[in-house]
């Protein structure tokens, strides 16, 4: 796929009607957009309609795109706004509290691993420096990470996907998802903590051997 990082070039090619460029952008963002829409509406089918509608909005708005935010942020904002409007029409005033709530007590590490009352490690993690790189980069390891991300609450999953898989900046994610910087950081923190935990269990099992 061609470079998706140069917005000015992308917009120019889209405006010129370059289908390959459009297909590339669709392939890159469609899955995220669907999940995002799904947070605001009742069903997968409605989310698909929302995303289709949003893409039409993107095409219609393209001539007016001024590059004040990145193209992908702008596209995601259109999805969020379209989904919100649709959700309201369906009688859903706000996104699911389950998706957007930040639970108060969700420690990064199992509290049992610290000395009670004192708070230093009783069962400290051990370095992964000795784990061979081919083990870390094995398909099974990535499957483990995927599983961990899929098991996260939707918004946590989306934040870690955008930040750590797709490499967005925190500002882009805040703008795209319409969340505060603090909220974004908490969501990212929870997500990374859980993925680390899953990897630790997986790699420790591996190291313990059969």
């Amino acid at each position, binding site marked *: 796929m061609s470079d998706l990082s140069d917005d000015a070039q992308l917009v120019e090619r889209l405006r010129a009607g370059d289908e390959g460029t459009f297909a590339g952008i669709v392939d890159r963002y469609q899955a995220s957009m669907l999940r995002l829409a799904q947070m605001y509406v009742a069903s997968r089918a409605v989310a698909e309609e929302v995303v289709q509608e949003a893409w039409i909005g993107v095409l219609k708005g393209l001539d007016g795109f001024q590059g004040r935010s990145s193209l992908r942020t702008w596209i995601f904002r259109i999805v969020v706004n379209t989904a919100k409007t649709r959700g309201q029409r369906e009688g859903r005033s706000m996104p699911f509290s389950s998706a957007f709530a930040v639970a108060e007590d969700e420690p990064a590490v199992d509290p049992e691993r610290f000395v009670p009352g*004192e708070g230093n490690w009783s069962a400290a993690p051990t370095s992964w420096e000795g784990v061979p790189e081919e083990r870390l980069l094995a398909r099974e390891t990535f499957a483990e990470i995927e599983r961990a991300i899929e098991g996260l609450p939707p918004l946590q999953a989306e934040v*870690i996907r955008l930040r750590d898989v797709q490499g967005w900046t925190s500002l882009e994610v805040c703008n795209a998802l319409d969340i505060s910087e603090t909220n974004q950081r908490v969501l990212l923190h929870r997500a990374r*903590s859980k993925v680390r935990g899953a990897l630790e269990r997986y790699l420790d099992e591996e190291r313990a051997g059969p």
Partner: protein
Amino acid sequence: MVCRELVELVTAYLEGAMAPEDRMRLERHLHECYGCAAYIEQIRTTIRLTGHLTAENIPAEGREELLRAFREWKSSG
């Protein structure tokens, strides 16, 4: 700072979102604590490995519809 606090501050630390004096407290702890040093190394490795995941593919029918919409948009514009 104790270890249980440090693990909750790791993301703020890596994001550069900590006040300088808190950051110094955290780094001081990190220098003295093997467990926390290993923890933050694991978080960094987690971020690196997560970065190797590739974006998912989308269902083919939605894609075709969109490409059709794009062609229509192009010919109408």
